[in-house]
């Protein structure tokens, strides 16, 4: 009889079996990789801004306190974006003719919010944004002594501001389940309140003071694995501040 398939068909058959399994699995893996990559999260991707504002320059080189511009960071959910007035309080004195600052001066002159010189579109491009349907409150985190860098990465080193962390739910929960990981006392100035500690951190960097391993990691925006001792200390702080850890992972803490 005329056979239907030639021997090579066997190989093809087996190959297609393998493919049938490999392809979907591969696709899924790819998907999850992409969804966690900067292509999706924008981590480390700097957007352009009306003015190429440099946190590095202002916070460390000039030593301006975060709260000078982000006025409500200790009071309210939103950290607050500086008004043109705030910018002008210095830049009416210095770099009064810098073309890069033209948008600021224009805003001040017209009494209209800052806009892109190029496109004329209004406002700053938002860099750090929690996902939709999440209610984040800056003030309570600061009050607990959570460093800005925990979420904003090496912000004080950035010339072009970029997102520091992916802001995944998983990532938030990681801290909300084990706050002791992020709570610490600055050994060099232990009597600072947690809130003062947050901002004193940048003074230390500016003065080039010696930084602990944890502080170094924070400075660079790297992950840090606290030592057992540190965790123990952290738990004590949780106790002291009466943080009800079990409630921190409740939906209603972040979603309403």
């Amino acid at each position: 009889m005329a056979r239907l398939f030639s021997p090579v068909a066997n190989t093809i058959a087996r190959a297609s079996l393998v493919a049938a399994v490999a392809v979907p699995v591969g696709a899924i893996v790819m998907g999850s990789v992409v969804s966690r990559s900067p292509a999706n999260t924008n981590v480390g991707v700097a957007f352009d801004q009306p003015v190429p504002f440099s946190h590095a320059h202002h916070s460390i080189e000039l030593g301006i306190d975060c709260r000078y511009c982000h006025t409500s960071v200790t009071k309210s959910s939103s950290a607050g974006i500086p008004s043109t007035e705030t910018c002008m309080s210095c830049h009416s004195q210095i770099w009064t003719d810098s073309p890069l600052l033209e948008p600021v001066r224009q805003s001040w002159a017209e009494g209209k919010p800052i806009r892109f010189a190029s496109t004329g579109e209004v406002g700053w491009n938002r860099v750090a944004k929690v996902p939709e349907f999440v209610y984040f409150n800056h003030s309570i985190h600061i009050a607990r002594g959570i460093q800005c860098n925990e979420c904003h990465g090496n912000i004080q080193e950035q010339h072009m501001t970029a997102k520091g962390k992916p802001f995944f739910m998983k990532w938030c929960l990681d801290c909300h389940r084990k706050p002791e990981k992020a709570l610490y006392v600055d050994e060099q100035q232990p009597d600072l309140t947690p809130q003062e500690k947050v901002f004193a951190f940048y003074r230390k960097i500016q003065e080039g003071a010696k930084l602990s391993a944890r502080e170094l990691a924070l400075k660079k925006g790297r992950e840090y694995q606290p030592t057992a001792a540190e965790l123990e200390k952290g738990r004590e702080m949780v106790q002291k501040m009466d943080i009800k850890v079990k409630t921190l992972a409740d939906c209603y803490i972040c979603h309403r």
Partner: protein
Amino acid sequence: MAETLTKPHDEEPLIEGNQTYASLTETVAGVVQRQKDHPKAWFVAFVLGFGLVNVLLLSITYLVYMGIGIWGNNQPVAWSFDIINFVWWIGIGHAGTLISAILLLMRQEWRTSINRFAEAMTIFAVMCAGMYPLLHTGRPWVAYWLLPYPNILAMWPQPRSPLVWDVFAVSTYMTVSILFWYTGLVPDLATLRERVKNRFAKVLAGMGSLGWRGSAKHWMRYEQAYIILAGLSTPLVLSVHTIVSFDFAVSILPGWQATIFPPYFVAGAVYAGFAMVLTFMIPMRRWYRIEHLVTMNHIDWMAKIMLTTGLIVFYGYIVEVFYAWYSANPYEQFMMWNRWHGPYAPAYWLLILCNGVIPQLLWSKKNRRNLKLVFAVSLVVSLGMWLERFIIIPVSLHRDFLPSSWGMYYPTIWDFGMFFGTIGFFVMMMFLFVRFIPMISIFEVRELWSRIRPQRAEVKEVEA
């Protein structure tokens, strides 16, 4: 040993006439081979089905665009046609698995002529059913959250919910049914591989048959696997409708919270399933001239099973009434009162008529062998089983605990669009199936024939 077990048929044989392996093969495979001479009925039915499929697509498109609001659902009746149809279709599916698995385990040889057909029915019915749980969600595009997979949200499905059980049950049921069906199909595809002339079809069959060559060693492992698959499918099929019934039994709603539900749902499923098999088989066997394979015996037996399961279901209705009275629970009692006298009472009494009264005709052998009548009864039962779910779902929901939140439910054209749409889909798939796939398991017929045919000696004489 098979012979020692009870043969369902006493007087007439399961395969009529003077057959040979070749002739049997010819009858069944011929249907697929001779694409030219299909009966007119095929085209009529196919076109009908195809038309309705378009209605389905239209309904789905509009649904996804607008939202569930295009249906009649509301508060308090948050589920209605969507879940009614889901349960109805799943139920219909059950006959297939029952025939192919349970009857196989029971060595009921008469299953051989109908199991392939019934299994196909199962698969298509489950497809129809599967659409509803997905589409009835408010946001179908995130329905995949019901599947467990590690994600950036650190969220998982909530395994206490019967809906998650449904996801596992239905997908398992679908997978196992397809495996079972395909496994049974492989040797027949091998047959087609050798018989069909059309090259394309030949290659297709060749690929499908996986190079099956009927080796005795293969047959042995094949039968081991096949019988164990049957052994797995049997509890599976029972579990599936049990779990579907949990959607209701697990709740606290009067009319839903009933321990009788699992058995009574399973029985109902088989009931509806056999009705559907008959609805299709009776015309098919005529159109495709396979009366000698699907004999009056088969019809008779299916009718008997329908009657039996029907009685179980009817018993279920009676028990519900008993519970309502015996519980002394005002909500339960009102629920039953409402079924009898409430605004939807006609539906309830029609249900009793369809599922309880009319099927009693099947007690008489004469009726069981009256094709027209059995056909009619099977249709009535399908309707009845749909009504049963209507009574259970919207009618229980529309008046629950607080009279202030009572309401009414009125279906919209889109509710019906979805329903008839899926019926169309089912019809279309069935008719495509009979056209392109052997609707009877050829090798099992041969095997059966090899055992029940008249002794070889006689054959010799006949041949001489």
